[in-house]
């Protein structure tokens, strides 16, 4: 698998993402935001976490309009895979690739902590190595992760099975206590209609080694690599 990790001014988890992709067996290349094309043969585009352009405007608003995003939109339109994590999720919403928006956390503070997620479905390219309903232990680190959408969008997401992950307890129960940022329907991540674009606030890329907290995040990268095969 060939991955392109887009770097915006202010991205800061691009290195973590490259490490996770490589560990799972993908080739991973950083791509500067001013590029007009993706590297040839790109299977997966990743928008990593960070504070693109300082997040001084609405999070992701400037990056969502960066030069490289036209190429990312074209890749997605062809059915290519796109993963946006944290700031990357915010950028995908701003770029029109996913519906809804990420508002300030319910407590109005940045929060960084370990977090269980319930895997809603395991028949996508991103989650096939997980079990349906499995609770995975990852982490969050964000100030604006409060997923918000209008009632119609929410209904469509739920009806079409486009919710990827929900905040849960260790047993996969979706509880109010587990939903610390206040997201609607406890939504932690969503798919596009064709299931080829995934945006999520939590960081699977930081939970890939036993030494550093655990390995529950690896399943996502291994799912992707198993679709394309390991890099030569």
């Amino acid at each position, binding site marked *: 698998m060939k991955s392109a990790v887009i770097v915006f*001014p*202010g991205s*800061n988890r691009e290195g973590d993402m490259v490490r996770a992709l490589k560990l799972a067996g993908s080739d991973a290349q950083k791509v500067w935001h001013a590029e007009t094309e993706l590297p040839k043969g790109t299977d997966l585009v990743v928008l990593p976490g960070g504070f693109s352009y*300082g997040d001084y405007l609405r999070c992701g608003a400037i990056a969502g309009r960066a030069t490289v995003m036209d190429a990312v939109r074209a890749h997605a339109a062809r059915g290519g895979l796109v993963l946006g994590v944290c700031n990357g999720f915010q950028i995908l919403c701003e770029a029109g690739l996913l519906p809804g928006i990420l508002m300030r956390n319910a407590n109005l503070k*940045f929060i*960084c902590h370990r977090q269980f997620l319930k895997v809603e479905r395991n028949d996508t390219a991103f989650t096939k190595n997980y079990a349906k309903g499995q609770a995975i232990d990852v982490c969050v*680190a964000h100030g604006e992760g409060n997923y918000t959408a209008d009632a119609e969008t929410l209904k469509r997401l739920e009806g079409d099975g486009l919710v990827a992950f929900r905040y849960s307890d260790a047993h996969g129960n979706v509880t109010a206590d587990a939903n610390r940022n206040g997201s609607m329907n406890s939504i932690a991540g969503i798919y596009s209609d064709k299931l080829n674009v995934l945006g999520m606030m939590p960081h699977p890329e*930081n939970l890939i080694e036993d030494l550093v*907290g655990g390995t529950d995040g690896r399943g996502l990268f291994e799912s992707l690599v198993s679709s394309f095969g390991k890099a030569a």
Partner: protein
Amino acid sequence: MIRNDVAITPELVKEHGLKPDEYERFVKLIGREPTITELGIVSAMWNEHCSYKSSRIHLRGLPTKAPWVIQGPGENAGVIDIGDGLACIFKMESHNHPSFIEPYQGAATGVGGILRDVFTMGARPIAALNFLRFGEPDHPKTPHLVSGVVAGIGGYGNSFGVPTVGGSVGFDKRYNGNILVNAMAVGLARTDEIWYAKATGVGNPIVYLGSKTGRDGIHGATMASAEFDDASEEKRPTVQVGDPFAEKLLLEACLELMKSGAVIAIQDMGAAGLTSSAVEMGAKGNLGVELDLDKVPCREEGMTAYEMMLSESQERMLMVLKPGMEKEAEAIFHKWGLDFAVIGKTTDTLRFVIKHEGEVKADLPIKELGDEAPLYDRPWVESPKRPVITPESVKAPMSEAEALLKLVGSPDQCSKRWVWEQYDHLILGNTVQTPGGDAAIVRVEDGPKGLALTTDVTPRYCEADPFEGGKQAVAEAWRNITAVGGLPLAITDNLNFASPERPESMGQFVGCLKGIGEACKVLDFPVVSGNVSLYNETNGQGILPTPAIGGVGVLDDVTVNASVAFKAEGQAIILIGATAGWLGQSIYLRDVCGREEGAPPPVDLVTEKRNGDFIRQLIRSGQVKTVHDCSDGGIALSLAEMAMAGGIGAEITAVPENMPLHAFLFGEDQARYVIAADEDAAADILYAAGAQGIPAVTLGVTGGDSLILPGKQAISVKQLKSAHEAWLPEYMTGKS
């Protein structure tokens, strides 16, 4: 001859924080009346913050050398060799006064400044820590300050992309009018790619990099060198505003530029901005510096030479470039969207010449600005010795279980989760031990090495006995690193004290420094960088003497480490180190008995080293995975924290024969660790300790869901946890 368009009156001199005799000294040095720009420059160079005029002669006594020290104090940060061709570059610095006036920006720019100190030397920051002290919880300003400072530290570090992995938070009425915000940054570089401030070569271009210059922070360093009074909030305009996004770009651009080979010398613009950075580069390199301020990128219109020289706008750097490399350097900075301007050159005149709008605004001898700064041997008096409080003389006002429950939920001992959850402590994917333990551990790149990091000091000990308190601060940092399996290598010190012009507080400074020096020497734990923050007082009320110590140690194999959490049921709990039941200046005496009295526990450094080396050996040989040092709250608090972290209880059966139970459980004798190990290993450990003459005693056994103190006093782990976690969030939402 320089034209003098502003008359220099005694009032103007006073406003610049210069004493009349200091001004006289300056006039004599330059042989004429200074211009207003020159007055500004000298006030920036000769204030306490930049000149260390009250502290220099005492700092000289600190041990700063060891075979692994690459760079000691005097540069932007200290540098140590951690093996495999890698260097760890680190420093801690205060931003106390700005944070009191404008907590968010004050704390944020404190973090920004210290990160810049580290990457100026070529290191990529891999961890941040902090040391915070606030006023008493009941003081009306305290919640606002806590909230702003924590958000500011997080706001800067999170965006910049460095994990904030450790720190210390405490409350005391003595910080009501003067909080402490000390930030520490730790970076990593190759030993052959370290950059210094020393300029070389005549006629080389001096380049300005980073954000534009505005009017923020003018006289920040002078403010940091003055006492506070009720009008201090009027100083808000002198607090700088931070831009972590610009800093992140500056980091990437600087590291890229360093790789290109274009850099001769580099210095960040911190306190006293352009003045201090330019003087430092020239003076260190025995060169003159000539600057043309018309070339300085400005954010505001009509800025004067005076304002530009004293601005403390953030995220700026000064570099001396190799001639002919300007174009290449400029391209790198423009790629990152940052300003780049050649604003001057090095000269062979040893003068510091400032030109603006076709006029010379300042022409000063560059070396003397630093070397001839006033140096004071301020009068000081030794702090009076406090009486030793015997264990028997302290009556227990409540049961040990009640006292423990009270302490785990007290402001100083409660969980600081509310704080560190606002810091991204997981970014970079190398945080092996997160906040809440004895020391944080971060993996170095892909391993196998790791760094153990901590910040610590016990201010109430320092006040009761500066010498012992100074020793204890270093010993505790050393112990924290040891307790996770690290070999302590070096420290950075952030010396926060009250006015040096009062002999009592100067005496505290002198005493603490002697203690720090003594401990560094015996523990082989030199000082490689640091910061002195004096005049921490408001309306004549000084803070507790608070020499915060930031310690760094190395783990050769980061996978072999220990943490505080109980990991299995049925393990033997062993106490290493001798217990005399020392309650003087203890948390128990203060928070349970309501008495702030007595001499603090003495620190026997030879014992400290022996016991610590023994513990580290146990961890490194794989015999022990569970270790917690004993500090505030003694054995009892250590046990409670171990039980809470692991979610496993314990039954403590050891009963002291020669002292009251509460003195045994809560005494704060030094050089002690609580460990847990399987029964077989425990027998070996007790035997090995005995053979080396190290006191070791079995306290009890892990298991169950309660911590049971002697006399069948049980507290459920759940109850401990809920008390421990409750206080801070409730306080911050106004519920407690």
